[in-house]
């Protein structure tokens, strides 16, 4: 699968490494080439300095032939806009978007973008972890 990732932060860099490791063709974009330090040393994909909301930068990353586009920058709006460009201008079949704001996730989810809110997911996870019963071993230790 050909994948274009926008944003080489912790999540972006790690995802790029995982996909590359499994043999997918990965291109990752970031505004700052210093971010590429997060890629694993054996990363065999393409790392490009460029703005993921800019059509020319996306073309350089091979968006026209991509099977998936994933937006993982810090800015919700930037992620949403890039995903809309990927989906509606370049007709990328799968478009995934990180939106910290749960309400924005809801809105753009209903507008056809696969959006994830780490805020909701993580809060839920922490809550479950906190409230679930302590493992047996720990109980015995007391």
């Amino acid at each position, binding site marked *: 699968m050909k994948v274009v990732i926008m944003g080489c932060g912790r999540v972006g860099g790690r995802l790029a490494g995982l996909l590359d490791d499994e043999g997918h063709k990965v291109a990752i974009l970031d505004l700052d080439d210093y971010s590429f330090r997060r890629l694993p040393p054996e990363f065999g994909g393409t790392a490009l300095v460029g703005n993921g909301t800019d059509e020319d930068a996306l073309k350089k990353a091979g968006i026209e032939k991509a099977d998936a586009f994933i937006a993982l920058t810090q800015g919700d709006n930037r992620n949403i*806009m890039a995903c809309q460009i990927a989906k509606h*201008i370049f007709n990328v079949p799968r478009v995934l978007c990180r939106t910290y704001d749960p309400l924005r996730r809801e*809105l753009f989810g209903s507008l056809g973008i696969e959006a994830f809110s780490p805020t909701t997911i993580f809060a839920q996870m922490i809550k479950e972890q906190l409230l679930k019963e302590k493992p047996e071993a720990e109980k015995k230790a007391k």
Partner: protein
Amino acid sequence: MYIIIIGGGQVGYFLAKALLDEGHELLVLEKDAARTAFICNELGSVCVRGDGCEMATLEEAGAGRADMFVAVTGDDEDNLVSCQAAKHKFNVPRTVARVNNPKNETIFRKMGIDVAISSTNIILENIEEEVPTHPITHLLDIQEQGLEIVEIKIPPHSTTIGKTVKELPLPAGNTLSLIIRGQQKPFVPDEDTVLEAEDQIVAITTPESEEALGTALRGS
């Protein structure tokens, strides 16, 4: 009319001022505290600090009853997202967005923003008009139909002088709508109208065929 403006920068501030003068009810949403205070001092309490992309803020701002929504921040992605929220979440009838990077105009239109105004393009067009040798001046874009109205001036020694309109190789779908000639009253040309030097011709064309139209009218 109730109008919500996102972004209290230069554009937002002067727009708010102009719209208040016209008697509209309006609210400016601005992220920066100092800027918010400045606008409130100058224009009265029409500015609230808040992020125009947050649904909760928009709800509080009364986006549900807004007649018009204008996003004029310096960031295209913020303008796009807040206009989409206004349109799809709050059903605001008319959304207007400022586009800073002209390349983004297409995506704004595709995403259903009613009016996308590219400030960069407007400045370019205005400067273009001031360059006397520029062959084609853009007067107006008719975005929905993909048409534009342009003005073309016939140069003094053009090979097309003395020809009639029907002799010109006009691109398909182009219409000459008006000729302005010296001090005469402007007139609508027909196919037998003969071109003269210094004629100013107002024509309807498309972005793809405007160059061919320029060549047809001005000769090679």
